[in-house]
C-alpha cells in the first residue's frame, strides 16, 4: 500500500440476488485528492458509495481508511470515522431550522450543563459552515424556506465541513453523489471552489454525469461499467469524448441532440396557446403560443418561476388568472384532468416524489395516468391484460431495462425509471407534452434516448414544452426558447437549426445583464 493513501478499497464485490452490482473493484485514494467516479446508471457507482459509507456490507473485499481496515455497520459509524456523504436524494428534514439540519446527529458536541443545547454556538458553527461555502443562507430559517438547489448546497456544505468543524477530523473523506445535477452555474462554481479547498484538508470522491465537470475538478478518474473498474484516466490527458467512450463502450454521437431532425414548424398551426398567465409569487402575465411539432424551451434560473409555469400550463396547480387553448379550441381555464383528456401530458421534475411509485411494478406505474379510459371499462373493470400488453410494448419500444411488466420500479436505474414515467404518458398518444427537467439525474446513454424520443414525438406532430436547467439541452433541442426571469418571460429567442443561440446569450438574458 502506498503511504500517502487515505482510503483504499480492495477487491470489493457485491451481489444483489442474481445481479452482480460490483465486481472485484480495487483502487486507492491519495491524501488531498479529488477522485472522480463515472459510469452509466447501473454501473455500480451508488453501490460503491453505499459500501464505503457503511450502508451495505460488501460480500467480498475490504476497505482501508488511514491504513486500517474499517467495517462501519451503518452510515453513522462511517460518519464518525470521518467519511461523510451527500446522497443523491435529499436527506434534509424540511420543517426544522437549517442549522439543526447541518448539525443533526452531532448535537452531543453542543451540550451545555449536561442537557441543554447551546443553540447560539450551534448557530455560529452552522453559519461558519455555510459561509465557508459562500452561500447566502441564514441558518436560523426553516429549511423548507429554501428551494431545491439551495437545500442541496446545504447538504454539500454539511458533508464537507462538519467532519472538520465539529468532529475535528483532520483528513475526512467526502463522498459526493451527483451533487451538481440541480445546481445553478454560480453555485456549481462555488462548489468547485469548495472542493478545491477541502482538498487541502481531506479527499473527495465525486460521482457526476456531467463529464466536463468531472474532467475539470478531478485529479484522477475511475470509470465503472457493469460493476467493473474498466479504466482509470488522468483528466489532464483525456477528453469528454474518450471518457464517454469508456463508459458506454462507444464514442458519443456527434449529433447528441439529433439536431438534424429538427424540422421547420413556423408554418404549423398553433397547438397550445397560453394567455395572460399569472400566479401570485410565481409568474406574471405570461403569454405563449406553441406550434404543432415544436419543441418550445423554457429556461431561467431556479427562482425564475419556470417550473411553476409548467405546473400552471398543465392545470396541475392552476394559475390565478389566465386561459389555455388547445388546437384552436375555446380558451378555457386550465384544468388538469380535462387537459389530459384533450391529450396533454406532464412529466414532473421531482421524479421520486411525483413521477413514480417505486415499490410498484412497471405496469402499474405506466397505467396510472390512464385508469379512467385506456385501462378500465365503463363500469370500472380493470383491464389487466391490456395493462400487461401495453407495459410489455413500452419495455420493448423505448428500451426499459426490466425483465417484465411486473418488475418493481425500485430495482430500476434512474434512467429506466424516467422511461417508465414517459411511457405512462406515451401510451395516451399525447399531443402536448410538458417536460420539467426530463433528464435530471439520468446517465448519458438514457439522456440520448430521451432526446431521440423527443424528436420522434415532434416528428409525429406532438408539441413539447421543455423546461430545463441544462442549457445545452435547451439550446440543442428547442425550436424557440423563452427565457424567464423573476416570473416574467423576458425574451423569446429563436433557435433554428443553422442559428442556435450560445450559452452566453441565454445566460445573459437569464441574469438580466443583456
Amino acid at each position: 500500500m502506498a503511504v500517502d493513501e487515505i482510503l483504499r478499497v480492495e477487491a470489493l464485490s457485491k451481489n444483489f440476488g442474481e445481479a452482480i452490482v460490483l465486481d472485484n473493484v480495487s483502487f486507492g485514494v491519495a491524501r488531498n485528492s479529488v477522485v472522480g467516479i463515472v459510469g452509466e446508471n447501473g454501473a455500480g457507482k451508488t453501490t460503491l458509495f453505499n459500501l464505503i459509507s457503511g450502508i451495505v456490507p460488501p460480500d467480498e473485499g475490504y476497505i482501508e481508511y488511514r491504513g486500517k481496515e474499517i467495517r462501519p455497520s451503518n452510515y453513522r459509524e462511517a460518519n464518525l470515522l470521518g467519511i461523510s456523504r451527500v446522497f443523491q436524494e435529499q436527506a434534509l428534514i424540511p420543517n426544522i431550522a437549517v442549522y439543526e439540519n447541518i448539525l443533526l446527529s452531532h448535537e452531543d458536541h453542543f451540550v451545555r450543563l449536561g442537557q441543554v443545547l447551546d443553540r447560539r454556538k450551534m448557530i455560529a458553527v452552522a453559519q461558519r459552515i455555510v459561509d465557508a461555502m459562500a452561500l447566502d443562507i441564514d441558518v436560523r430559517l426553516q429549511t423548507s424556506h429554501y428551494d431545491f438547489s439551495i437545500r442541496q448546497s446545504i447538504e454539500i456544505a454539511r458533508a464537507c465541513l462538519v467532519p472538520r468543524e465539529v468532529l475535528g477530523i483532520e483528513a475526512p473523506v467526502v463522498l459526493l453523489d451527483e451533487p451538481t445535477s440541480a445546481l445553478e452555474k454560480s453555485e456549481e462554481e462555488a462548489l468547485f471552489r469548495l472542493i478545491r479547498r477541502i482538498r487541502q484538508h481531506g479527499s473527495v470522491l465525486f460521482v457526476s454525469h456531467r463529464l466536463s465537470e468531472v474532467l475539470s475538478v478531478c485529479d484522477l478518474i475511475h470509470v465503472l461499467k457493469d460493476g467493473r473498474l474498466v479504466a482509470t484516466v488522468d483528466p489532464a490527458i483525456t477528453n469528454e469524448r474518450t471518457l464517454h467512450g469508456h463508459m458506454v463502450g462507444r464514442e458519443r454521437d456527434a449529433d447528441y441532440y439529433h439536431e438534424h431532425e429538427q424540422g421547420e414548424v413556423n408554418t404549423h398551426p398553433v397547438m397550445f396557446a397560453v394567455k395572460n398567465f399569472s400566479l401570485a409569487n410565481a409568474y406574471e402575465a405570461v403569454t405563449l403560443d406553441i406550434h404543432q411539432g415544436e419543441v418550445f424551451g423554457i429556461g431561467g434560473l431556479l427562482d425564475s418561476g419556470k417550473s411553476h409555469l409548467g405546473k400552471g400550463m398543465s392545470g396541475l396547480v392552476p394559475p390565478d388568472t389566465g386561459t389555455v387553448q388547445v388546437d384552436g379550441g375555446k380558451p378555457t381555464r386550465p384544468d388538469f384532468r380535462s387537459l389530459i383528456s384533450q391529450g396533454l401530458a406532464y412529466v414532473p421534475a421531482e421524479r421520486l416524489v411525483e413521477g413514480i411509485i417505486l415499490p410498484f411494478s412497471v405496469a402499474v406505474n405506466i397505467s396510472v395516468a390512464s385508469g379512467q379510459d385506456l385501462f378500465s371499462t365503463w363500469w370500472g373493470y380493470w383491464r389487466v391484460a391490456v395493462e400487461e400488453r401495453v407495459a410489455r410494448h413500452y419495455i420493448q419500444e423505448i428500451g426499459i431495462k426490466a425483465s417484465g411488466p411486473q418488475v418493481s420500479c425500485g430495482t430500476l436505474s434512474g434512467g429506466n425509471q424516467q422511461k417508465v414515467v414517459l411511457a405512462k404518458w406515451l401510451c395516451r398518444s399525447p399531443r402536448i407534452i410538458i417536460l420539467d427537467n426530463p433528464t435530471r439525474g439520468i446517465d448519458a446513454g438514457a439522456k440520448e434516448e430521451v432526446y431521440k424520443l423527443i424528436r420522434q414525438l415532434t416528428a409525429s406532430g406532438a408539441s413539447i414544452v421543455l423546461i430545463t436547467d441544462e442549457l445545452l439541452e435547451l439550446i440543442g433541442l428547442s425550436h424557440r426558447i423563452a427565457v424567464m426571469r423573476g416570473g416574467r418571460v423576458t425574451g423569446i429567442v429563436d433557435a433554428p437549426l443553422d442559428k442556435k443561440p450560445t450559452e452566453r446569450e441565454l445566460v445573459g438574458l437569464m441574469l438580466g445583464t443583456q
Partner: protein
Amino acid sequence: MRRRRGALLQTTFVGMLPILVVLILFVVFSVASDAFLSLRNLTAVASQASTLLLACTGATFVILMGSIDLSVGAIVLLVGAVVVTLINSFGLGISALAVGTALGTVLGFANGAIFSLGVIPSFVVTLGSLSVFTGIALELLQGRALQYNSVPFDELAIGQMVPHFPNIALFAITIWAIMVFVCFRTRFGRYMYVIGGGEAVARTSGVPVGRYKIYAFMLSGAMAGIGGTLAVARVGAAGPTLGTDLLLNTLAAIVVGGTSLSGGVGGVHRSLLGVLIITLLDDGLNLLGVNQYSQMMIKGAVVIGAVLISQDRSKLSTSK
C-alpha cells in the same frame, strides 16, 4: 392469476405467515379443547367472525389508501340502533338491510367528505365521528338494549340456507369475495393502492384523489352498515356495547392479515386471515377457560408479534 397480480401481492414466506398462524391456532385448539372441533362451535365461530369480516372488508380499503377509519365500530352501533328503532316503529322486515347499508354509506360519506374536502387527517376525523356516532346511538337507545320482533329479519342472520353455515356468514364471505375482486380487478381497487403507495404521483397522473378518498370511506361505511344490521339480526337486539370491540379488532385483523398501515401494501384477501386469527383466538381461549383479562393481553401480544415478524423493516425508514 396469482402471478399476474404479482406486484401487488406478497408471495414470500412472510406473506404466507398468517395462513400458517390460522392452521397452528386450529390445530392447537383442536388438541387442547374437545369442544373446539364440534359443529356447534364452528358454526358459532363462523357467525361471530361475520360482523368483523364485513367491517374489515370495507376498512381495509381505507387503510390500503394510507388512511384510517376508527369509526367502523361506532357505525355498526348507530346503524344497529336505528335499524331496531325502525323495525319497532314501522314494522320493517328484510328491507331493514337496505336501510342499514344506506345509512352506513351516508355516515361513511360524512367521514370521507370532511377528511377529503377539509384536508384533516383521517385519524382525527374518524376519532371525532366515532364519538359523535356513538353519542347519537346511545341517545337513541337511552343506554339500554332494545329488542325487536321480526322473524324474517332474524332469518337474515341466523337462518341456514346452507346447513350449519349461518346466513350471516354466507353474506360476509360472499361480500368479501366480491370485494377481493373489487380490490384487484377494478379501477377503484387500483386507485386505492396507487393513492396509498404515492399520493403525489397519483395526483400528478390525474387520478381524482379527493373523490376516491370519499368513495373509500363510503364503502367502509356501507360495509359497517351491513355488518351492523346483520349483527342486530343475529343477537335479536341492539345494545350499548354493540360494536365496541370492533375498534380494536378491525385494526388488529387488518394489520395481522398483512395490510400495512402506511398504505399501498396488502389487500382485502388478507383481511380474511386476520379475521380468522382474531376470532379463533377469542373462541379458543374462551373454550380453554382463559379469563377475559388474560385474553386481552394475549390478543394484544399477538397483534404486535405478527407485525414484528411480518413487516419488512429494511424497507421502512421511519415509523409513526
